Structure formats: structure tokens, C-alpha cells
């Protein structure tokens, strides 16, 4: 089994985010980065599938130089090698998927996993677009993966607590939903080993012009005025309970 995991490096959760001076993206000064959460679940699933079926796990990440930290982190968790598609631009999903497809075409993957959406752009489609560009079948919002020789059986999450099992041939692309497994931590040994693992750096072809151009990034306008209580916890709590009892009448 050759399993490829596409990961994205995104600003750390709970980062304080401000629009950049250009107004075209966020101010990246002082931001820390991490592996996009659903992608971390995709990586874990790949590692577990390798434990069951043998083979190789390759992580691929498109991003600037700092993306290599995230690739190293994935290698420390147990991925065998990395591919870094080096690009500084904030790309749309078609541009990203095109670069990933170009970098992966010669890898003859059996299975490609990625998270169902990114925590930054949140388009939720890079995996599906990648599948289309490689002419692989795909399925999304996946909560379980089973492989029997060259058939894949996956559990797709539907809305309101419904699920559906789907079979399809390999090779295929799946987009993984958070929570389908338990994430592992990198061990000290893993971190040490990761240092000597290969990261192939790919310089992508210049992308075609975007047809979905971000013109402005801004703080959302507050439309609803919640009554906010500040100050010390005790005073705020007392004020809130008063309101709930006498204004909202829900206590």
C-alpha cells in the first residue's frame, strides 16, 4: 500500500487574527502554525492503515518554507517521507490541487487521504478537486476506512447523525472527518528518526490565474447586539442571572 496524505499548515487554533495591511490575507507576523486538524486525523488513519496492511506513508504539503516544520512533525509521527511543494502564495483550491496533482502523478499512489476542510480558507474541496485532476474516485466526510485487496469500503457521514457505507476501487481519494480515530503524539525516538527522513522539494509550475480572487479580508460586522457582562466573574454572573430571571424569564 502506498498511501499519500496531503496536509496543510494553518495558523494555530485560538491565534489572534487580524487582517494584513494589504487587506488580502491575515497579518502573519507573530503567528504560530500547526497541521490543519482534519489533516492530522487523515495522517493518523494512514499510519493505522500502514500498520494493518504494510506499505509506505508519504506526506505532501504545499506552502512556504515554514511548511517543512509540519512535514517534519508528520515524519516524527511515523510517515516515511515527505514532499514539499514550495510556494509562497495564498492559493485557491484549484491552484493548490493542481500543484499537488503534478507532484503526485508519478507516485502511483493506492490511496490519497486529506482532511475534509482547512481551518483557514475552509473551502472544503482540495481533496475532491485533486481526485478529479488525477481521475480517481473520491468520497468525503469519511469516518471509517476498510481495505480489502483493491477495494475500499468507507463510512461517509451524512447530516443529522446518519451514515452510509460506500465501496469503490483503488486508487481513490478520501477526505477525512475529525474524530474517526485517536491522534498519536510523536515519540522522542520518532522525532530523532524524522531528522534523517527524506523531504523532496518540488518547485511547482506557476499556477493559472485564479477565478475566485480574494479582494478583501476584514472583521465581520457585528449585527446582533448581545448584552455583554464584563468585570469580575461574581458580578458578571449575578447580573446575568438577574437578566435570565427577570428579563428573559427562563429561570
Amino acid at each position: 500500500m502506498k498511501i499519500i496524505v496531503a496536509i496543510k499548515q494553518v495558523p494555530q487554533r485560538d491565534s489572534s487574527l487580524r487582517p494584513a495591511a494589504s487587506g488580502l490575507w491575515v497579518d502573519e507576523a507573530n503567528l504560530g502554525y500547526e497541521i490543519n486538524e482534519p489533516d492530522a486525523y487523515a495522517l493518523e488513519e494512514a499510519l493505522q492503515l500502514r500498520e494493518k496492511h504494510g506499505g509506505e506513508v508519504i506526506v505532501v504539503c504545499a506552502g512556504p518554507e515554514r511548511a517543512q516544520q509540519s512535514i517534519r512533525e508528520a515524519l516524527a509521527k511515523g510517515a516515511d517521507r515527505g514532499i514539499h511543494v514550495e510556494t509562497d502564495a495564498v492559493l485557491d483550491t484549484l491552484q493548490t490541487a493542481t500543484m499537488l496533482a503534478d507532484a503526485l502523478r508519478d507516485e502511483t499512489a493506492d490511496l490519497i487521504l486529506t482532511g475534509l476542510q482547512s481551518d483557514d480558507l475552509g473551502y472544503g474541496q482540495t481533496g475532491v478537486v485533486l481526485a478529479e485532476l488525477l481521475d480517481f474516485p473520491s468520497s468525503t466526510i469519511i469516518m471509517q476506512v476498510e481495505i480489502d485487496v483493491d477495494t475500499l469500503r468507507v463510512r461517509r457521514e451524512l447530516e443529522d447523525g446518519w451514515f452510509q457505507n460506500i465501496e469503490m476501487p483503488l486508487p481513490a481519494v478520501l477526505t477525512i472527518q475529525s474524530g474517526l480515530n485517536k491522534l498519536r503524539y510523536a515519540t522522542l525516538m520518532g522525532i530523532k528518526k524524522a531528522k534523517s527522513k527524506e523531504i523532496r522539494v518540488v518547485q511547482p509550475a506557476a499556477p493559472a490565474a485564479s477565478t475566485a480572487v480574494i479582494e478583501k479580508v476584514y472583521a465581520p460586522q457585528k449585527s446582533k447586539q448581545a448584552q455583554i457582562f464584563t468585570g469580575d466573574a461574581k458580578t458578571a454572573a449575578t447580573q446575568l442571572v438577574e437578566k435570565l430571571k427577570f428579563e428573559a424569564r427562563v429561570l
Partner: protein
Amino acid sequence: MSVLVVLEAGHRMAGEALTAGRQFAAALGVPLTAATIPADLTYTADGFTAAYEAHARATNPALVVFAHTYQTRDWAPKLATRFRKVLISDVIAARVDSGSPVFVRQLFQGKLNSDVRATGDGPHFVSVQAGAFPPVEAEAPETISLTPAVEPRQNPEKPFRESTRAVDLTAAPVIVSVGRGIKDEGNIPVVQKLADALGAELAASRPICDAGWLPMERQVGSSGQTVTPKLYLAVGISGAIQHLVGMKGSKTIVAINQDPNAPIFEVADYGIVGDLFEVVPALVEAVQRAKS
């Protein structure tokens, strides 16, 4: 040239897609059309993509509009890719500016907004967020029924539900819901005490259930339960759209969060900006005093 609305058979958001389509068609000054694949024809990504690709090539719409549902996520990006376009997904507003459509979509799970311009020739592809374009009473456009005609690679089985739910959150008049702000499984008693003081059911955002800190059946949101209690307290929950769709119909919403810019405050009636580990115990005391 037209605006084509894709109607997902039997989905509650079909009316919202039509509202959006109607609005976009008026702004662009083109007619509104709609298409659907009947519910008795099995959904596959390959089948739906091929059917709509043929229809879009034949009719050449300026804009194809979807509701941002789980099914849309599964195939609409494939369709857009066949036209070398991005699916401008999960949009919350739109306008036409200098002749081309500009869509508003959220970044970072609702913490920031962005204006995205669809450039170049159509068709463009856009999906709309739940709740952003409420359905209205209006005449439906002519709706064409399509039939998937390719052999799909996916072979889907019948949808099922995991198990009958032991907890019915929909019946609870008061819900205390906890999110990732609780930080650790060992802190769950902090919010359990508040639920006890209020006589409330305890619920959670998805990451709490993913981590196994509370059972799946207590999850509120698009992949959990949809609740409308008279009082919903969101504790350490940021307010991502997938959570909001499950609780924003609650009569009174209280948010407790240390981030004054957390999107949850947008749907809240009352809020406390502060550390939940100080606020929640103080609230337990205040509730006990008020009730005694």
C-alpha cells in the same frame, strides 16, 4: 445566460438555494432556472457530476448555485473542476460590482470575512451557507429533472443511523453545552455542576465528543442534534457554523467565552467575556442563590 439552481431532492435547504439563486439572478439581470435529480435515483458523486456537467454545457449558465450541504461537498467541487473553476463555497452574502459577482465568505471558522470576486467567463459555481438566504414564499422556477447516465465508480449502500439515541436533547428545556475551552476531560465536572444547578442536560460541541469526553449522542450541530431549548448556555464554544445550525433556534442563548470576538456572541442574547473556570463556578453560586 441564466442562474441555475441545483435543488437537492428532499433537502431542507432547497428553499435557501432558491432564495440565493433568485437574488443572484436579479442582480445579474438574467433568468432563473433550476434542476434536480429525483430522490429515487441513487446519489453518487460520479453520476451527479456527469449529469450536471452535460446540463451545464448545454445551457451555459452564468452561475450555478448550490446549498452547502454534505452532498454538495461531495460532488460540486468535481463539477466546478471540469470547468476549471473553484466552487466558491459556503457564502453568506453576494453583490454585483463592476459587472462581476462578489461573494462574502467566512475565513477561520467565522472569525474573519472575505470578499471573493468571481473573475473570467462563467459558469461560476457557488454554494450558500445554511441560514444565510432564508426561504421565501415565491413562485418556483421551471425545474428540469436530470438522470445520471454514467456507470459510477462508487457503490453506495443504504444510509443508516448508528443506534437509537439514549439521550433526547430535543426535549430538554435547558441545555448547558461545553466546547474545547474546557481543555481537559478532567474539567467536565465544572460544567456538570452548572447543568445540575440549572436542572439542565449537558451537551457539547463536536471536538468534545470526538475526544470521547462526552458521548456522541450529546453532540449539538450539523452532524449531531438540532435543539431549540428555552435556554442554551454555550461554554467555551467558538461558534463555528456547524455548531450554530444545531442551536441557533434556541429561545435564549448565553455565551461564555474568553475571546470577545468569538462568533458565538453573534447569536447570543447575553454573554460573559471571561475565563470559564472563574465564570462558571460564580454562575453556579448565583443560580443557587436565585433559586433558593
